[in-house]
């Protein structure tokens, strides 16, 4: 049970926007962890005052703020380091997009988590976490 509280020692400064890369890693980690989702998103047990996280916030980070799940392949150098990272996040985007195409974007977090699509989202995120971690970012965890 590790929260995203210390990103000071990340090794992601070889991309143009390292802070946004850390936000991306934090969001992918959250999507990869059913334990975090239940505890933080549903039970609202936060690691410290002022902390907040839910499914929508992670979608904002990955689509609206960074667009890393909308224009993944063009993010190398800005947020991402390698084609492996692009491939992993492309699969995560496919899982989320398929879920939104079927269910829309207005459901509660728990409804997405109980849907038959959620397993694909979590497994794609977990695979992406492994790739992102292999690229040297060890500090950002959900």
């Amino acid at each position, binding site marked *: 049970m590790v929260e995203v509280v210390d990103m000071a020692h990340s090794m992601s400064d070889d991309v143009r926007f390292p802070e946004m890369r850390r936000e991306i890693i934090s969001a992918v980690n959250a999507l990869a962890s059913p334990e975090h989702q239940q505890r933080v998103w549903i039970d609202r047990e936060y690691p410290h005052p002022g902390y907040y996280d839910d499914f929508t916030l992670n979608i904002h980070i990955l689509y609206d703020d960074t667009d890393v799940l909308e224009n993944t392949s063009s993010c190398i150098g800005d*947020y991402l380091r390698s084609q492996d990272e692009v491939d992993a996040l492309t699969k995560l985007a496919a899982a989320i997009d398929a879920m939104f*195409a079927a269910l829309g974007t207005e459901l509660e977090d728990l409804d997405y988590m109980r849907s038959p699509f959620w397993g694909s989202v979590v497994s794609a995120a977990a695979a992406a976490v492994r790739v992102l971690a292999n690229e040297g970012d060890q500090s950002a965890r959900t």
Partner: protein
Amino acid sequence: MSLGEVIARAGSALVGSERARHLSAEAADALDWACAELRRTLHGSSAPEFEEALASLTRAQDAIGEMCSTLALAETAIHAYLRHLGVSDTDAPVTTVAPESRSARAVGTPGAGPSRKPGRDTPAAADQGVAADTERYWKPDGLPETIPVEWGAGISNRKGTGIRWHDPLNPRGSGVRIDKGDPDSAWPSQRVDHVIVRYNGKVIGRDGNPIEGSIKVYFENAHIPFSEWSKWSTWHTP
């Protein structure tokens, strides 16, 4: 046609153009993927028919790029025209898409995964996004003129009610997202319309300085009440 109708149509054209450019970026992304797959298939070998396919894909990418440039020029012209009329383009009412256009669109099927290529919307899902986006379009009242005209009308957030802009000169580093407030939220910053500001790759807090960590950790500081942000001297400085 009345002046009001002209302004409404201009506003609608801006929104449509912005969305067209957004979808074009997705199409370009799909072409990127197709090119990469072809190259992987080739494995460095030389096959004329594949080379021809690659050349065709590249031409398609160029055409999309030209189309986006043309749309951007058209948007600039519309913005200039609205200014000439003495109207802030952000105040221009938006004419919705004609019902017959929406009804012709395919709708994503539950359980149907992406088939065109991994990682992107299926064409059906992408089209559904256009229709849904048109219906979901929202912007707060009193949008300040500090948002550069060149940024266009903004596009709807992927989830939730809200609108976003990316600086066309630095789309990955700078931009603004505005979320509609939820009066029932437990968080004060979420009860009102609020703004996330990114400037050169850093999220800017309410005091105008970059936050020193994640949005999740500095949640309240990173979400600036719209009423406060709309008085800032520029879109990224108080």
